[in-house]
């Protein structure tokens, strides 16, 4: 009967594409009954998509999922719940307006003659909280007043009281401190001992090695390996599996020599930029013609740094120097006026005018420059400019009046990059410049970035793709736990080194 135990949840040939992007390609592996099975991989490796499929939130294009030998055919959350599969999201799905007890038991199973029996509700919630050692959380208090870690525990508790067969935890420790994470891991171990199967997603190597029975590594939407977590398993082996691309034949040419002139003047300097509990004081220097890469796994503070540098998020402390001029206050208006532009990481939220013609999109940051008497716009010059950019960036457009909403992701991204370059900026901050676009558009965008850098523009590039960073950057800063923990210069790049910084915070191979 080992087969049935070994193949408690069988994932076979799962493929899922979003537009042109393959999120998952023919992924197959199995999960044993009663194990803690970690799924890991870089950002964008396909972990979240796979979990969404197992959790019934999206259907695969092809392939099958079998639970105890029975194939799952309907992919809706309710169906997954009925089968006993529950998922705890990274973005919590909790009700802050309600009490802890009501969050644990949303279906209020405790009734007396039909009425909700709050006494037993609170008693039951108390005993569940005690089970997790959460003595300080009271069942009667509103969840909104509980710290994030507590809210996370409460959501996990909500899944557990439903007596599931499998629970999926998506980066449950990302918002927790070490002590809280410790507590959670202890609880997971105990749940496992009670027979629960746990699928666990995390970036933290230490905790993965501590609690996993087996570890599956995904890379670029493909299955790499499932490893038994034996004492012999080393961090290096995991890192090699995560990053082990063959880069010799790929489209990326790893930079070995910095492209920036050594005597280039400093364009941008960030000093002591910090915000409580999301970014420790951070410095960054950028010279003309230089490309500085910033790498970090999810939750390492990279997102915060990129947004705070451009004033999209408030800071507590720190200042910015643009060509030696000091700016204590940072907001997009000041930055745009100083010819600093920002390529947003999510083009669906901000960065494009989806329902406006491409020409309008391109003229947005330079309206003032193209206006004449009474602000009337010089449409002929705007048109010429748009035509130039569209040609230069090889954007495939039916006409200039096409709206970005009707374009492919790659072309949208190229339009967005064009918008940022129209004002002839001296500094560009790019955030995930090639997320979710096809390989062709990706190489083109890389070429453009290298090209403008060679003309003296300074670029800070935030990316979760190591090969991309290694082929573009003159040096790479690595972040972990809201701080910059290392810097690697061109010539010393290996994926292993960078990933080691990001994962464990030091370059030494000995481990902590």
């Amino acid at each position, binding site marked *: 009967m080992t087969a049935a135990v070994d193949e408690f949840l069988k994932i076979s040939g799962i493929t899922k594409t979003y537009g042109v992007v393959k999120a998952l390609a023919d992924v197959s592996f199995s999960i044993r009954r009663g194990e803690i099975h970690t799924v890991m991989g870089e950002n964008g490796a396909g972990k979240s998509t796979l979990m969404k499929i197992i959790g019934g939130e999206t259907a695969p294009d092809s392939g099958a999922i079998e639970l105890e030998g029975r194939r799952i055919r309907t992919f809706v*959350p309710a169906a997954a719940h009925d089968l006993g599969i529950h998922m705890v999201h990274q973005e919590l*799905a909790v*009700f*802050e*307006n*309600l009490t802890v007890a009501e969050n644990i038991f949303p*279906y209020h199973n405790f009734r007396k003659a039909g*009425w*909700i029996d709050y006494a037993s509700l609170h008693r039951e919630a108390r005993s569940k909280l005690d089970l997790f050692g959460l003595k300080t959380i009271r069942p009667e208090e509103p969840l909104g007043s509980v710290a994030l870690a507590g809210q996370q525990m409460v959501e996990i508790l909500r899944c557990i009281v439903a007596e599931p067969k499998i629970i999926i935890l998506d980066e449950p420790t990302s918002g927790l401190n070490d002590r809280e994470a410790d507590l959670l891991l202890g609880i997971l171990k105990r749940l496992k001992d009670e027979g629960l199967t746990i699928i666990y997603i995390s970036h933290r190597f230490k905790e993965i090695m501590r609690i996993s029975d087996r570890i599956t590594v995904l890379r670029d939407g493909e299955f790499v390996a499932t490893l038994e977590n034996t004492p012999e398993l080393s961090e290096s082996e995991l890192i090699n599996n995560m990053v082990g691309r063959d880069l010799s034949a790929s489209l990326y040419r790893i930079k070995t020599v910095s492209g920036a002139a050594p005597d280039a003047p400093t364009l941008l300097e960030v000093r002591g930029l910090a915000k409580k509990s999301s970014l420790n004081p951070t410095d960054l220097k950028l010279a003309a013609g230089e490309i500085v890469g910033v790498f970090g796994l999810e939750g390492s503070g990279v997102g915060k740094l990129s947004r705070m540098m451009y004033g999209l*998020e408030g800071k507590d402390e720190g200042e910015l120097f643009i060509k030696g001029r000091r700016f204590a206050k940072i907001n997009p208006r000041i930055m745009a006026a100083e010819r600093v532009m920002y390529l947003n990481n999510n083009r669906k939220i901000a960065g494009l005018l989806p329902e406006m013609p491409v020409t309008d999109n391109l003229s947005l940051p330079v309206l003032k420059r193209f206006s004449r008497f009474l602000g009337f716009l010089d449409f002929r010059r705007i048109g010429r400019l748009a035509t130039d950019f569209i040609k230069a960036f090889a954007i495939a457009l039916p006409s200039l009046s096409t709206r970005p909403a009707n374009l492919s992701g790659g072309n949208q991204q190229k339009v967005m990059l064009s918008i940022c370059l129209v004002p002839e900026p001296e500094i560009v901050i790019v955030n995930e410049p090639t997320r979710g676009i096809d390989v062709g558009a990706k190489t083109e965008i890389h070429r453009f970035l290298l090209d403008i850098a060679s003309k003296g523009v300074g670029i800070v590039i935030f990316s979760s793709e190591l090969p991309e960073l290694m082929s573009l950057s003159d040096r790479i800063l690595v972040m972990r736990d809201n701080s910059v923990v290392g810097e690697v210069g061109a010539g010393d790049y290996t994926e292993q080194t960078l990933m080691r910084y990001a994962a464990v915070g030091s370059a030494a191979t000995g481990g902590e």
Partner: protein
Amino acid sequence: MPGKLARKSEFVPLVLSLALAAALSAASGVFWTSANLNSLQASIAPTAIMAFGMMLCLICGYFDLSIGSIMLLAGLLSGKFNDWGLSTPAIVLFVLLAGLAVGCLNGFLVAVLGINALIATIGVQYIGYGFAMTLWDRNMQHRKFPGDFIAMGDGQFLGMYYMTWVMLAILVGLGFFLKYTLSGRRLYYVGGNREASRLIGFNDRRIVFLCYAATGLLAALAGVLAVARIQSPTQYMGGGVHMTCMIACVIGGGSFAGGKGSALGAALGVTFMSLLTNMFNLLEMNTQLQNVVVGLTLIAVIVVDGYLNLKKMRAMGMI
């Protein structure tokens, strides 16, 4: 535990009402007269019944601006049915059904068609007013209702109008429903986090639809009781009452962001608003000045509510 009491959301309207009542009894000799207390009751009871409906919508994160028209429609329909010679129970039944129908229309527009709740219910308010006024004729106010109909509004039991008892009964019933039944609790889940409520399997659209339907029903009930109290239909019923109710609910612990509020809070909020109106009457201030005060109060309430939500979102790092 006084600290615990002060943290309850009902504490604010309670204190406000008590303070205003105290001020009024000091400032005006007629505040505690039975005539004034009766008129206060007659103002609080129907408004509170409507505010209960508004509170249901607010808890889910919506609002209903059409309740004024529904009240008017209920009043004028009562008159119309009376003209046709229907008996009192039949009048009440049909009027309530009409209110339910308008409520369902609101629910359909908002929950099913997905039209912005403000515009949809403003539109229904406008249409409802037009529809009600087509029933209106000048002679209506001179034709009397049957005695048992009038008794619903005029009759008293233990010194309080029947309608006050009805209001209190609904208050208790709704209070228990919202606190002690799963169906009632669901409103808070939907209003607190719609996406998450879907994930745990609640049918948010159906819940919102039913809240609008209930609101229509309650507004019609309020209309019947109010018209019974004044003994003949008038065209001025329900004017501005949607604003009064909305403010009352927010003062009483509801929020435009949804997920908060209670029946008791709504009742206390209405008590405060009625005392405010009473103050205008007792101190012989211009009644239109009420609208100014109500409008400014609404803005203040919106700003405070919005500021608190903004602060929460900032604290969570969403902005």
